[in-house]
């Protein structure tokens, strides 16, 4: 069975790279998109040398939503698309200006909504496909150390729930991935982290979860239980914690 194209937005992030490796190893041709075209082409060369698959790179800026219609239109004209992974994100260190906060919201929520809505119409026309949205455990509950990012991801998670509901009758699968702490440039050097996962493993697990048609998946799996406990704490207690 011919393997359709897999699109990865935010392809230069460590988790996306891990997923790209897994898709490439399975023989899927790829379109890698991000702002860093130079890095993308290096990544593309690497994957095509290692796995003998066709890998293209394309420029894509999550924040620049006005550029999205053209980008997704050009994709629609191509060969059949197997699915897409939304893996772009942004986090900022404290202290944050409002500009920083705006960027976090624009990239993690607004940019994702724009991309997801375009992909949704694309797949609806095809009547098949998969969408993987990369959210975060940070979206499960707002905590003092990271709530701007957390709230944007919370918005994304709820949006993905709704999209999953809407696209289910069309046979299009929408999967929400909530990674815990992952060892990437975003977290390198940050204090207070624990049980940090290897992005390569997370990327691989994403594709494996897709195989199993999971709806909402925590990676690594134990975060499901941690967040269950965290979400269960009464607010009267939680507001006193310094997580």
């Amino acid at each position, binding site marked *: 069975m011919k393997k359709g194209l897999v699109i990865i937005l935010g392809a230069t992030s460590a988790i996306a790279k891990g997923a790209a490796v897994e898709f490439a190893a399975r023989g899927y041709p790829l379109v890698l998109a991000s702002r*860093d075209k130079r890095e993308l082409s290096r990544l593309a060369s690497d994957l095509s040398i*290692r796995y003998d698959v066709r890998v293209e790179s394309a420029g894509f800026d999550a924040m620049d939503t006005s550029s999205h219609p053209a980008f997704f239109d050009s994709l629609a004209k191509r060969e059949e698309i197997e699915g897409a992974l939304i893996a772009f994100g942004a986090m900022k260190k404290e202290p944050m200006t409002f500009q920083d906060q705006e960027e976090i919201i624009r990239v993690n929520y607004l940019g994702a909504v724009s991309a997801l809505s375009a992909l949704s119409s694309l797949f609806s026309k095809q009547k098949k496909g998969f969408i993987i949205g990369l959210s975060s455990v940070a979206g499960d509950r707002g905590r003092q150390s990271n709530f701007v990012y957390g709230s944007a991801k919370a918005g994304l998670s709820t949006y993905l729930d709704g999209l999953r509901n809407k696209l289910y009758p069309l046979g299009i699968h929408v999967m929400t991935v909530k990674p815990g702490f992952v060892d990437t*440039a975003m977290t*390198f*050097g*940050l204090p207070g982290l624990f049980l940090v996962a290897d992005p390569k493993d997370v990327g691989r697990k994403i594709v494996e979860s897709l195989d199993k048609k999971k709806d909402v998946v925590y990676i690594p799996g134990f975060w499901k239980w941690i967040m269950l406990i965290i979400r269960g704490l009464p607010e009267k207690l939680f507001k006193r914690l310094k997580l």
Partner: protein
Amino acid sequence: MGTYKKEISGWGGLAKGESNLARPERIDDIKEKGHVYSARGLGRSYGDASLNTGNETILMERLNRFLEFDKSSGVLKAESGVSIKDIVKTFVPKGFFVPVTPGTKEATLGGCLAADVHGKNHHKDGSFSEHVVEFEILTPNGLKKRVQRKDEELFNATAGGMGLTGIITEITLKLLPIETPFIKTMHTPCTSLEDLLAHLSENGKNERYSVAWVDLLSTKRGVRSIAMSGDHLLKEELINFSKIKADFEPGEFQVPFHFPSFTLNAMGQKLFNALYFHVQKRKKTFLSSLESFFYPLDKLKNWNRLYGKRGFYQYQFVVPEKGSEIAIKKVLETLQKRKCPVFLAVLKKFGKENNGYLSFPKDGFTLTMDIPGNYPGLFALLDNLDEIIMEHEGRVYLAKDFHLGPAAFRSMYPRYEIFNKLKKKIDPEFLIQTDLSRRLKIGYP
């Protein structure tokens, strides 16, 4: 780029120090610095070569992309954080091996060039840098330089230069075409040092790969050893091996010979096992997998941890052929007299030295020994061994060193002055330093 302070150590567990670690995800993340820094690959050097206590250490492990590969010539261009393991995994199925490999796959290309590593084939194929077509380096003043062999000074300062000329970012390497993933191996037991040295000299003329495992723990009746030699098995020879009675069905022997499909997949593995287990019964010649011939120690992942908290010191030196027997005997006698146990010892014949100013290999014999790190008076003992080595015009391998002083270093590496001149030119503010370079005063007037 986030950084954080962490203690890192050399592979032997003795050298340790806290550095400010940075881990770029792309080469462009490495910016010009106004402070002292250095690079580190996978940290397999045994001493303090990759440490930079109190300063910034750039971890290169995520700069590991393949950039270009030419199937017909076998020339590969890759980022310097690519490991030998990466290359073996990706290219053996495509019909290529590494031209020179150190004893571990867990070493980066950048590290291999910086240490100018050698393999079991040094006497025939020279060291790692001799197979590097060109490389790209980020000099301390922020310039990206493409260095070819004809840029003699920078090339020869970087080959074996222990990372002190800049951050190596990309390497173009010519891979070795192979026809099968097997090495036809021969073991020859030797009963004395004399015997062994003669055998290794003789062997050097024939086999591509040659090395000896030496048992230094029981030297009561002379030094026992097993000389191991081998070469890549050719397609046509695989058929010869099959003519020996083997325990597999004739029909199973349908090996797809056209690369890239020949891999140690289920079929290949069955075939290999059948041949290997049968041929083991024969006296001397048998087939080894690439893994067991080149990387027997990697199997015990983190084998250095077997030494526990005491760590270990790996002492490796080379002495010219003439007088080598006397030099080695003196070294062994010194160790015996001091009752110092040597757990692992390997002996090889080296070929000619190359133009790398601080490159280690030179014509003669090289002996590598593991000494327990908690041996009392270890460094004093090593100083004594150094004296013997220097007396015989030999030298110690910097990638394993953690005890030499500046005087011994200068005596062992006579081209250090040429290196220092280049170092001053390329790094006028002396920004790239490591614990090793400070200990040996490399680059100091």
